């Protein structure tokens, strides 16, 4: 994407999303005073009243913080994309996907009804799939999109199961009501399944170990998408879910340890992996993983420090990470590369980008007076206050934060200020629509660092209040908290971080060496997918043999087993058979049918078999005639005739039957006899009971008076139940067309 040549970028497709998200941002922003005062807003519409499903929206501090991040960063990212993708052949499609994603994401964070939340949740998965696979002509994009869809989609299904369990346990799907009932879930016997299912949804969405591997691959998406979905918003949906369910699911050992371990492992693993990357965008992707791990780790607890730290870090991270992603996008667009080894000293050519990158990176590294510093201090304070293992948690935070310092240097110091290599010549500053985003986001990080109270009173404290139920435990956000343990840990972080930065090249080489030897999750994913495909193939081959005889055997066998078992379990005694006085023609038909069936069973010729079956059918038709059902008899006769004719035509092509007639057919004969006997017994039993003649009487009376017809069968077909008949003839037509298509289509050549 070359932005150096002037392109018409003021287009409807580019700017409409900016207007939409900007307006929504203003709409949410005007709610700040209400929410900051401690109130909440709720909107309810009946959706499926019979099931008690409402579309209800609930806005409290947590929802509002997320909604403002989504719409605010959304507006900036969309302005950026309007220029970044200007003139792209699919720009309108991109805008549609991105806007749809934004609306779905807003739905996730403000839905109160869990089922509505699930629907929005899945919509973000689908839009994310479309956005990752936006460059659908590359194999990598398609694979990454599918991988993200499979991982998060599977988690989504687990979440749905968890939501249904929550609904049946708590008696309501409204999250605000569930959170108002302390212990309703934690003291339930279903608590463990609920927790595991909900966390499966959250961990896959927020890419916690061992579901993390899709997120770095998702960087196949255009850079604005990575900035927006895969760092600032969508991947935080899992974090949102954990925060939202925190009041009703947290406080147990399972919650504490699951989140602590998953969070800590993800955090440390991701920051080490980030150091290994030479692609700046991938390095940022791994630091996003680190941030998600840190947030999970913090949400494991319920002390004021940890939750305040989580709320603050959530905002800090979204600001600096979106800014840095956009900066990398600018570097990529202006220089044509995002390899750390090729970019040096670009600050002279791109001063504004360099400044934005520097401010955002200082916030990321946690230097004062930026918001990142406050976030980091709070993280340390929170780590010391955790209920699990303060030393273990604080140690993990220390390692991750030190690596953050080093990576902040790699991502934004080295490409702009380092003199280790020559700057790429002829590079110009990015156009202003692309600069607005990073500059505004970076400056906000600095502004909130200097005036933390603004953020604390408007967003952080209400968020803490929605997680902990009360704003009292929220800790004050301040730059200078005195000489205390977090400060010493901060100093240790910087020292360690600088050391890592100084030795980054040998460290990276060592890491690349280790990671290429270690088994990779990504390869594991491929083997898993291949395994699923092979398993499906095997299953299909096993149960779909393509041999009609086997299908018929299974179908009739199943019918036999089901009928026989029901018969034995539900009834007692052998039905007494009262032989009625049979006339001579009854006996004739009886033997006709019997001999037809016998002939079919023993013959070796297909034509003879089908003729034998025709005899059986004609015998049946005669029985219908004896019992005065001429319409049925006529139909039966005609159908029998046609079947014989049709089959005779087909039989010319079929090979002769296998020469050994009886050996292979013994099981068929047993099955046929068994099914026949069972059906006969059931019929005998059924006809023993009184016959309800209500319908018969109705049709006898109404047929002439209401429908002016004396042939009841036909009157029922074309008048009383005309809709059924219409459905049936539609089926006849569809069957006709399908068989026609099957016969006319050329058999597909076997593909290699």
């Amino acid at each position, binding site marked *: 994407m070359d932005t150096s040549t002037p392109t018409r970028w003021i287009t409807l497709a580019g700017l409409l999303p900016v207007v939409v998200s900007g307006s929504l941002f203003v709409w949410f922003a005007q709610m700040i005073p209400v929410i900051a005062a401690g109130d909440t807003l709720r909107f309810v519409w009946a959706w499926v009243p019979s099931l008690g499903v409402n579309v209800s929206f609930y806005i409290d501090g947590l929802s509002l913080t997320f909604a403002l991040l989504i719409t605010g960063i959304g507006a900036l990212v969309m302005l950026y994309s309007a220029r970044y993708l200007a003139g792209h052949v699919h720009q309108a499609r991109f805008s549609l996907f991105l806007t749809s994603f934004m609306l779905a994401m807003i739905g996730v964070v403000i839905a109160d009804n869990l089922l509505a939340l699930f629907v929005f949740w899945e919509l973000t998965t689908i839009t994310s799939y479309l956005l990752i696979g936006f460059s659908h002509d590359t194999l990598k994009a398609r694979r990454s999109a599918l991988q993200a869809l499979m991982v998060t989609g599977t988690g989504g299904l687990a979440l749905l199961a968890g939501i249904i369990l929550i609904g049946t346990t708590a008696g309501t799907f409204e999250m605000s009501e569930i959170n108002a009932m302390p212990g309703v879930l934690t003291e339930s016997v279903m608590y463990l399944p609920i927790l595991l299912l909900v966390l499966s949804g959250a961990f896959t969405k927020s890419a916690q170990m061992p579901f993390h591997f899709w997120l770095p691959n998702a960087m196949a998406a255009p850079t604005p998408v990575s900035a927006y979905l895969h760092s600032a918003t969508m991947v935080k949906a899992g974090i949102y879910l954990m925060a939202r369910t925190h009041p009703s699911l947290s406080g147990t050992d399972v919650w504490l340890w699951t989140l602590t371990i998953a969070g800590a492992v993800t955090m440390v693993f991701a920051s080490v992996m980030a150091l290994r990357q030479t692609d700046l965008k991938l390095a940022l992707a791994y630091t996003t993983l680190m941030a998600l791990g840190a947030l999970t780790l913090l949400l494991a607890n319920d002390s004021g420090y940890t939750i305040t730290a989580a709320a603050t870090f959530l905002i800090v991270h979204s600001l600096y990470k979106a800014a840095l992603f956009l900066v990398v996008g600018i570097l990529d667009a202006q220089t044509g590369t995002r390899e750390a080894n090729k970019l040096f000293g670009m600050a002279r050519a791109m001063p504004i980008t360099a400044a934005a990158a520097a401010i955002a990176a200082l916030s990321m590294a946690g230097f004062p007076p930026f918001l990142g510093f406050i976030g980091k201090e709070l993280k340390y304070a929170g780590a010391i206050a955790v209920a699990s293992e303060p030393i273990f948690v604080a140690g993990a935070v220390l390692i991750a934060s030190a690596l953050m310092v080093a990576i902040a240097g790699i991502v934004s110091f080295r490409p702009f200020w380092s003199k280790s290599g020559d700057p790429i010549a002829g590079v110009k500053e990015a156009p202003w629509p692309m600069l607005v985003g990073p500059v505004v986001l970076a400056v906000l990080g600095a502004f909130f660092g200097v005036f933390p109270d603004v953020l604390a009173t408007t967003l952080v404290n209400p968020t803490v209040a929605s997680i902990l139920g009360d704003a009292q435990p929220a800790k004050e956000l301040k730059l200078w908290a005195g000489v205390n343990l977090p400060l010493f840990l901060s100093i240790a972080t910087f020292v360690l971080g600088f050391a890592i930065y100084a030795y980054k090249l040998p460290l990276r080489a060592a890491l690349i060496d280790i990671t290429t030897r270690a088994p990779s999750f990504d390869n594991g994913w491929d083997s898993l997918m291949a395994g699923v495909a092979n398993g499906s193939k095997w299953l299909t081959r096993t149960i779909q043999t393509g041999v009609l005889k086997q299908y018929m055997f299974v179908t009739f066998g199943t019918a036999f087993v089901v009928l026989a078992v029901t018969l034995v379990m539900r009834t007692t005694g052998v039905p007494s058979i009262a032989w009625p006085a049979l006339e001579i023609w009854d006996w004739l038909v009886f033997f006709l049918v019997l001999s037809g069936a016998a002939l079919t069973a023993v013959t070796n010729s297909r034509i003879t078999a089908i003729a034998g079956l025709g005899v059986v059918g004609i015998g049946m038709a005669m029985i219908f005639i004896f019992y005065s059902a001429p319409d049925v008899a006529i139909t039966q006769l005609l*159908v029998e005739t046609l079947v014989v004719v*049709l089959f005779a035509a087909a039989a010319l092509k079929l090979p002769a039957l296998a020469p050994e007639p009886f050996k292979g057919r013994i099981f068929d004969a047993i099955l046929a006899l068994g099914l026949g006997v069972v059906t006969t017994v059931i019929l005998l039993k059924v006809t023993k009971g009184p016959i309800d003649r209500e319908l018969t009487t109705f049709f006898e009376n109404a047929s002439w008076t209401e429908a*002016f*017809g004396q042939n009841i069968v036909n009157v029922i077909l074309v008048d009383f139940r005309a809709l059924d008949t219409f459905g049936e*003839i539609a089926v006849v037509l569809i069957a006709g067309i399908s068989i026609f298509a099957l016969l006319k289509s050329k058999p597909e050549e076997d593909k290699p």
Partner: protein
Amino acid sequence: MNSIILVAGARLQVVLLLVFSAYMMLRGHNAPGGGFIGGLIAATGFVVYAIACGTSDARKALRFDPANIAGVGLGIALLAGVIAVFWGDALFTGQWLFIGATEDSKGIPLSTVLVFDIGVYLVVLGAILSITFALEEAV
């Protein structure tokens, strides 16, 4: 099949069967018969003709593609059902017109029910023939 007797017989038979099928369909409301049976009889006629003279001749004699006949039949049946709505009745309610009705006789009864049955007739005829012709051509 090259049999002069069969060809000559089939030519005669297809006419008789077609007339008979129309008769069976029309009498269906008061006596055994109806659109389904009528359609089957007509189809039998053409199937016999196709066996005797070949499917290409049978297709020519039919003039229309059997699948189209079936589709038109389904459309006619649907129309006959939908018309009831214009009289304010539920879908598929029969609408009757008695031409020349007197105290004693109902005159000539015309109805949407008959139109519906004609639709059934055409669907059955068309569907069976598209299967048969395709099958015979495939063999």
